[in-house]
């Protein structure tokens, strides 16, 4: 089959590789009909996530048709159309029983590695380094799906791939980001990053009843998309001082909920500050450039919530813990527990409450994945989201 392989920093290739086989009774093989490049795939592309190996198949946002099921999978049949959540979860451990699917205790066979870096291990994730399992991803013609009786969600209504594909990751991720803010009427929610996850966070905050939703980015075309998603205000951080602007907007209170949908590769408008973290990451004195998170903490209303859904990998520097502690802030975070959100968010799509296709800017054949990665990283041609068709 054809598959998108990570060949090194800034280097992906689409090559011929062996077809996947069932390794366990609870596996299924899915013939991928649509897959997407995630913002977090760019962290792999840029070489920020350790334990990648040359040849690893990328991709954790994919859907398709079931073509083979193991003996232990009774809820799926060959021919079923499914979307596959990016976290691999067993459904039986204590974490899964409590709905914390992205910290499944069993699905990462390399848990020992993750424990060394993070203390405890999260779940396994498709195509996302060996630290989280060494599973091939779904930017390929076929993918093996472990615990296929737990994860895949059947799509039985007449909806296009593009409408439901983002249930695999970015819609639930954005939604969980907003949900963690415990939005009540009158709340102002600010979202750092108007990429695909940030756009879904904006739309979700609006759905959950936020009075105002502020989107923060540096690309005009993305801020336009944010308005389309429901943002009442947009801030271009290269043009305005974000803290001043948010204080102005909220009459000095600060946003009640602050969502970091940027993660570890943030940029900062002040060259010196930007250079500081770039230099520190270059010499491995820190692994992240956490400008968005620092700003979200400083901006947040006293007693408010900082919700972190942008991806971080290791250690950061200059963390404003004084602001966090003295002002009674709550930090909530996590890889999305996608399984929880599949049904309710699917219903929102089916009932027309949201049309997730608005953020797709490019649809390419799988073979053009390398071009898709480059365009997405460089924000070429107003690139917001790339969907690949195997």
């Amino acid at each position: 089959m054809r598959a998108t392989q990570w060949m090194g920093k800034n280097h992906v290739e689409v090559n011929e590789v062996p077809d996947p086989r069932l390794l366990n009774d609870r596996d299924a093989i899915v013939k991928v009909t649509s897959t997407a490049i995630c913002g977090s795939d760019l962290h792999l592309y840029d070489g920020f996530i350790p334990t990648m190996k040359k040849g690893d198949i990328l991709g954790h946002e994919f859907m398709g048709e079931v073509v083979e099921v193991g003996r232990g999978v009774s809820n799926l049949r060959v021919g079923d159309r499914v979307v596959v959540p990016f976290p691999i979860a067993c459904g039986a451990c204590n974490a899964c029983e409590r709905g914390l699917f992205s910290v499944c205790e069993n699905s990462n066979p390399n848990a020992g590695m993750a424990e060394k870096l993070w203390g405890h291990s999260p779940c396994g994730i498709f195509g996302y380094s060996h630290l989280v399992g060494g599973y091939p991803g779904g930017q390929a013609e076929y993918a093996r799906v472990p615990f296929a009786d737990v994860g895949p969600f059947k799509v039985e209504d007449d909806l296009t791939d593009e409408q439901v594909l983002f249930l695999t990751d970015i819609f639930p991720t954005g939604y969980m980001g907003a949900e963690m803010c415990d939005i009540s009427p009158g709340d102002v929610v600010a979202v750092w990053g108007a990429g695909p996850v940030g756009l879904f966070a904006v739309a979700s905050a609006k759905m959950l009843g936020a009075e105002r939703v502020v989107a923060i980015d540096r690309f005009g075309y993305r801020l336009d998309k944010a308005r389309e998603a429901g943002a009442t205000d947009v801030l271009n951080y290269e043009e305005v001082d974000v803290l001043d602007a948010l204080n102005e907007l909220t009459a000095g209170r600060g946003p009640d909920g602050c969502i970091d949908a940027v993660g570890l590769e943030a940029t900062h408008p002040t060259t010196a500050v930007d250079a500081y973290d770039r230099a520190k990451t270059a010499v491995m004195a820190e692994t992240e450039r956490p400008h968005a998170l620092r700003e979200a903490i400083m901006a947040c209303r006293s007693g408010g919530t900082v919700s972190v859904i942008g991806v971080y990998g290791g250690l950061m520097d200059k963390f404003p813990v004084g602001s966090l502690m003295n002002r009674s802030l709550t930090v909530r975070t996590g890889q999305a527990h996608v399984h929880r959100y599949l049904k309710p968010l699917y219903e929102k799509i089916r009932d027309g409450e949201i049309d997730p296709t608005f953020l797709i800017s490019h649809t390419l054949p799988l073979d053009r994945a390398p071009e898709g990665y480059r365009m997405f990283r460089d924000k070429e041609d107003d690139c917001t989201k790339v969907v690949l068709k195997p």
Partner: protein
Amino acid sequence: MSSSRTRPAARRTARVLGLASAGLGVAMLRDPKGVARVSGVDDSATALSVIPLVGARELLHALPLLAGRPGWAWTRVAGDAVDLTAMGVALSHRGGERGRRLRTATAAVAGLAALDLLTAARSRRAGSRSAARELLPSSAPWKSAIDVSAAATVNRPPQEVHARWHDFSRLPEFMAHVREVRPAGIGRWHWVAEAPGRRTVEWVAEVVEESPGERIRWRSLPGADVENAGVVEFRPAPGDQGTEVRVRLAYAQPGGKAGKAVAKLFGEAPDQQVRDDLARFKQILETGQVVRSEGTPEGPLARRMAKQQPAVPRS
């Protein structure tokens, strides 16, 4: 989780102390007057005769410490106590420049004494020889032991978790280096484990204690290739979260070649291996299978962690 094989850090500290001992010893033997002057006791004839003796003692400590045996730091601790007492007495009737020098020397000795004490104490904690001895059969001809432990919470009731472990013939399903366990009489089991170089080691073990839903304890019978013992305990996890499983294994490590073979059996990370075994045990009980990825096709496996295959299907 711990391993009885001396920690690398403790060995390194032991070597540093060994070097310090050797340096002090040589200085005291070659130039007792100089040492006495630096310490501010050059006015005492007793000091001049005692210093070479202390030097000889230092050299005696130096050898095992340089070999990386942190346990020998205990002898240094005893020596430090003697030295510090003598220096305290000397301090009480010295003032001026000599007093100042003696205070500096005493502070230096006190500093070294603290390091000695720390190293010695850590050697005991890391050694846990007594803990291993209590597990291992008395017949075991061992100089040291590999003593590892791991714990996991399994989301199944204690009776069920106990029953699965009790089924000894199925232990190889989650114990990576155990190839076969077959019955060998009542309460006895014949174990075959993989050793490096496609060899195997074998032993017969007897269950010496069994309380359903609580504990299983076993140890090898005389004649084992590797004398060993193990205990696994099951306790209900708080908050209805299943069972807390704690396992401890001890392998006698005889001296010489045989000892090296046992060490090799466990590679560089004996702790990680028992943790991985327990992770597979948890996976089997909770999910009915060992979880495999294309990068780690065997399921959790210490040696595979260092040598991942690319995340690509195999043909």
